């Protein structure tokens, strides 16, 4: 098992390098002279002194060829040095690790809500298949899927913050402040989960082993909790991975609306402020996080499904 995991991680190295390359190129080809921008941040009213500019250019190594610059940056990353923010002068890695916690917490809260909503509603929908309740739930899901998350966020802010005053609308002071954004994130990602749980339960109910269990004399409860629940975990895990990835992406806009100090808010402001080291580092980090979530889901899958586990073992 260990071997497989190590093997998989090794196979990711080229992907990670490509991600780094893309992140670097995007910022490299960005208009504007980084040295000028850095100089502007270091000395806001300093004007444009060519000597100072040359100094900054040399400091950033802007005269080096593209590949050398990339190599320098990438070797820095490998040794944990992401450079320093133009704007604040703080190490990018430090900024990142300070903020990633909030993004992960938000994403996990969202995931939590999405799972709860998805499994409960999906179950109800499947259990009362074709009833008015099922039809209502299905209609709600398809409408919910079409509502942009930022609109839902504004709507919730109006209801729960402005009118009911249950939650604060902005900023992070206590974990309670994650509930509203988490709920928005979870809701806007839960539609797929509800649909999946519904179809899976219905599909499993018609499957051979459920028939076997039924003719064996097991009760519907036993069938559901012992057999069906276990089998729908597989697709749920897959979708959880996909959801987590889309939530980390989607948290960017939610963080901005709710003013959470996550990596999304910071990346947007860094991109707007042309803070290149931060933008590059964070872009790269986004890519790597997502690649590793996918890897993690793959590995998790092997733990749950004996068939895949056997196949994987056979490969080695």
């Amino acid at each position, binding site marked *: 098992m260990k071997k497989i995991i190590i093997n998989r991680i090794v196979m990711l190295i080229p992907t990670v390098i490509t991600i780094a390359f*893309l992140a670097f190129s995007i910022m490299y080809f960005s208009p504007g002279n980084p040295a000028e921008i850095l100089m502007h941040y270091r000395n806001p009213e300093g004007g444009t002194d060519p000597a100072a500019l040359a100094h900054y250019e040399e400091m950033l190594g802007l005269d080096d060829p593209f590949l050398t610059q990339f190599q320098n940056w990438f070797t820095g990353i490998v040794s944990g040095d992401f450079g320093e923010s133009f704007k604040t002068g703080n190490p990018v890695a430090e900024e990142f690790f300070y903020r990633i916690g909030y993004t992960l917490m938000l994403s996990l809260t969202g995931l939590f809500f999405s799972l709860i909503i998805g499994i409960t509603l999906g179950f109800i929908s499947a259990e009362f298949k074709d009833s008015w309740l099922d039809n209502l739930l299905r209609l709600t899901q398809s409408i919910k899927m079409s509502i942009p998350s930022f609109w839902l966020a504004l709507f919730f802010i109006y209801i729960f913050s402005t009118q009911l005053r249950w939650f604060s609308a902005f900023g992070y002071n206590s974990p309670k402040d994650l509930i509203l954004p988490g709920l928005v994130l979870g809701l806007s990602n839960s539609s797929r989960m509800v649909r999946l749980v519904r179809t899976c339960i219905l599909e499993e109910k018609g499957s051979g082993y459920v028939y076997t269990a039924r003719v064996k004399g097991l009760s519907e409860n036993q069938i559901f909790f012992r057999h069906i629940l276990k089998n729908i975990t597989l697709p749920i895990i897959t979708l959880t991975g996909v959801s987590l990835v889309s939530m980390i*992406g989607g948290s*960017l806009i939610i963080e901005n609306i709710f003013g959470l100090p996550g990596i999304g808010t910071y990346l947007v402001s860094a991109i707007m402020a042309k803070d290149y080291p931060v933008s590059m580092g964070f872009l790269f980090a986004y890519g790597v996080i997502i690649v590793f979530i996918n890897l993690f889901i793959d590995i998790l899958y092997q733990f749950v499904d004996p068939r895949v586990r056997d196949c994987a073992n056979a490969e080695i």
Partner: protein
Amino acid sequence: MRKFKLKTKKQHQQLIWLWWGLLALLLVLIIFAPVIFPESNTIDYARQLQKPSLQHWFGTDEFGRDLLSRVFNGMRTSLLYSLIIEAIALGIGLMVGLVSGYMGGRIDGFFSYIMNVFQAFPTTVAAIALIAVLGTSDLTLIVVLSVMGWVAYARIVRSETLIFKERDFVLGARASGANSVYILGKHICPNVLLPVLPLATLMIGHGIMAIASLSFLGFGVQPPNAEIGLMLKDSAMFINRAPWLLVGPGLVLAMVVALINALGDAIRDKLDPQQQMVEL
């Protein structure tokens, strides 16, 4: 034993026609918005931030402009851009998918790898970064979303190509000495397009949402043009004073996207009747 009555097929059909009627109506309103709602940019400070009324169904914004008119004119921009984006993305995806699936081997490996890398970046994040590079404008918005959108098409086209590649008519054509370009264009492409149709329909809705999200963050459509995301950004500024401004744009956006998605689902069901058999 029976707890509920099944809808008869006729009732079901009537409901479906109702949906399509609604979609058609909305599309007509959107497409002919400049004719139906010519007053979308008329400023009248006498009617600032009015509540919804018979004259102004969604209320008026801070310049006294009728929000309903602006919403439909805005949706027109979104829909147009989304169509362009999906057309470009479909074009790229089709080419890459066909070549990748048909050629196989190293070319396939290379493209699959590229697709994996592309999928490692969340769309919004990557789009924002690219827009930062290219500069904020409507054109970059279209380019960037197209560039981010082709992967989904390429994947499905590739897998379909792999299936059709082994079909008799393709093998026959190959045996009779037709060249690859001819086989791809004449035999595989038309067959592959059909399964892509539902996805393309769904992606139009996705495109509209993506444009709205980016505009909301300030990276999308630029202010002189009306757009839903932008309108909501403005409305959000008045959430304390005029919360009703949020309702109209969101409602129309959700309705249009939901109906487009329903259309996609319907197309999928038509093309893949087996999916329906499961329900039986």
